[in-house]
């Protein structure tokens, strides 16, 4: 099925119903009558999207959707391909399936995600895979690939999630994280890993390490060879041989928490 935005919403449009599980079992005429929220008003999908049946299981959504929220929310399976920018809460609480965004995304991508995969070819906003305010835990699984840059609080409170960033990250990358892995191939902002309990943050470039982290050693982690092989095979990221076979500084922290997390910083 193919959905194309024909009218730009004036206020955010909440499109939780746009998931393969909902769309793929309906005919085009039935999809047109699906309800979405334009601000606080209930409207039909057809008021904003033109729908065509391309006889494919792949759900294609296109247009400038930076004001469209909750695309692919609660998704359990299937695949969405988005052409253009998309707004906040993409893939909220998703537990399976695959969302590919050929464009940029807004803030709060994949909150409460527990499985599945999101691949963003452009940049992302603040609070990607981040715990909601007041919640102690954020995502609990899944994989997020961002080819461009991402802003602050990436992976705040996350567990068992893998996040791969081709560009730079903002401040507080991996703040309060419980477990999982974040790879930053660009520059990371300040206070990386602050309050982390467990988990791994891998940085290709040097970072300012917080004083509550303790230096361990320089070594060649075999785990990273496996991890980089996976990244090379599943993304377009350029992972040079010298990075794969290189040495890394290991820092343990954060001492204000369990002190069981690690920063692995490439040392060349």
């Amino acid at each position, binding site marked *: 099925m193919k959905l194309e935005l024909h009218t730009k919403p004036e206020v955010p449009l909440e499109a939780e119903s746009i998931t393969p599980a909902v769309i793929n079992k309906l005919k085009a005429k039935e999809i047109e009558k699906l309800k979405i929220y334009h601000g606080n008003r209930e409207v039909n999908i057809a008021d904003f999207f033109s729908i065509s049946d391309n006889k494919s299981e792949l759900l294609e959504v296109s247009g400038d959707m930076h004001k469209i929220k909750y695309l692919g929310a609660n998704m359990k399976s299937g695949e969405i391909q988005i052409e253009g920018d998309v707004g906040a809460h993409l893939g909220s609480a998703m537990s399976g399936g695959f969302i590919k965004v050929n464009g940029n995304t807004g803030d709060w991508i994949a909150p409460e995600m527990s499985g599945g995969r999101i691949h963003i070819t452009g940049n992302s906003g603040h609070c990607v895979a981040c715990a909601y305010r007041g919640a102690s835990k954020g995502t609990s699984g899944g994989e997020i690939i961002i080819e461009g840059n991402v802003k602050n609080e990436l992976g705040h409170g996350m567990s068992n999630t893998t996040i791969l960033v081709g560009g730079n990250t903002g401040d507080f990358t991996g703040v309060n994280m419980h477990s999982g892995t974040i790879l930053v191939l660009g520059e990371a902002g300040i206070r990386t890993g602050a309050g982390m309990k*467990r988990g791994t943050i891998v940085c290709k470039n040097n970072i300012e390490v917080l004083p509550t982290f303790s230096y361990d050693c320089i*070594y060649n982690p*075999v*785990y990273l*060879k*496996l991890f980089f*092989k*996976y990244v090379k095979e*599943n993304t377009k990221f350029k992972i040079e041989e010298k990075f794969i076979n290189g040495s890394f500084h290991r820092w343990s922290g954060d001492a204000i928490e369990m002190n069981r997390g690690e920063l692995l910083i490439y040392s060349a």
Partner: protein
Amino acid sequence: MALVKLLKLRKRKAFMKINNTEIVDTYAEAFSMWSAKVIITAENDYWAEGAARAMTGMATSVIGCKCEAGIDMKLSPEETPDGRPGYSILLFTMDKDSLGKRLVERIGQCVMTCPTTACFSGYDSDETVNVGGALRYFGDGHQIGKKINNERYWRIPVFDGEFIIQENFGVKESVGGGNFYILGDNVSTCLEACYDAVKVMKRVKNVIMPFPKGVVRSGSKVGSKYKALIASTNHIYCPTIKGVVKDSAVPENVHTCYEIVVDGADEKAVSEAMRVGMNAAAKEGVIQITAGNFGGKLGKYKFFLKDLI
């Protein structure tokens, strides 16, 4: 009457020849075992081989070693999960539970202890045993679990960094005890034939020849006159007693016998190894090639020599 029976036994029916070697019209009887394929990698070949040889040490026969194990293949960095040189090992036991135990023991004592190594499952199988998940406790709470592509790995801190091991190892029902016997006129000719056979058999994937250099001189039969023993020498192939053993299968002109035992991941692999091995072994001075069976009482697999050549 007894003399006729004896002569019949001594002159078993040879249905064809390879070169001048008689191939006896019989079959090798093999049985069901469980196997795991273990990939060992290390910083370089020296250490990978060291771990592989240690792990497959004293693992010739389930009769006395609790498992049978051997090196399947040497692997290039392109063939291993972490891009380092490695070896694939096959380990066989009689049941799935004991396979898990043997893997934990042998990987824990022989691979984790070896500098720079890591250890992965080589089978992509629905049936698994927990190996890394048991060995992780060696980390005394400092171990780290990581999931890559839905597989969990454990990072256990050791003196040179970390020992990486996959949590679950794929296992599958396999074939143990494929075999053929090489009967010749003297030791050196027979050993040369064994050497040539094992050399080509090693090129076959998914098989091991678990005995020293792939060859057994103390082939066994099931049971013994001594009740405590589950196996004893297969006296019918011992040339030194052919004059006194009534059911000896050693022909008059044969003075040496050797056995090559093959364990494989499946029937196809065992068949192929036996086929190339027999063809390589059939040479001047090798009088006869035959195989060991127990009338179908031991195992469910029968490898008829006539079907393999």
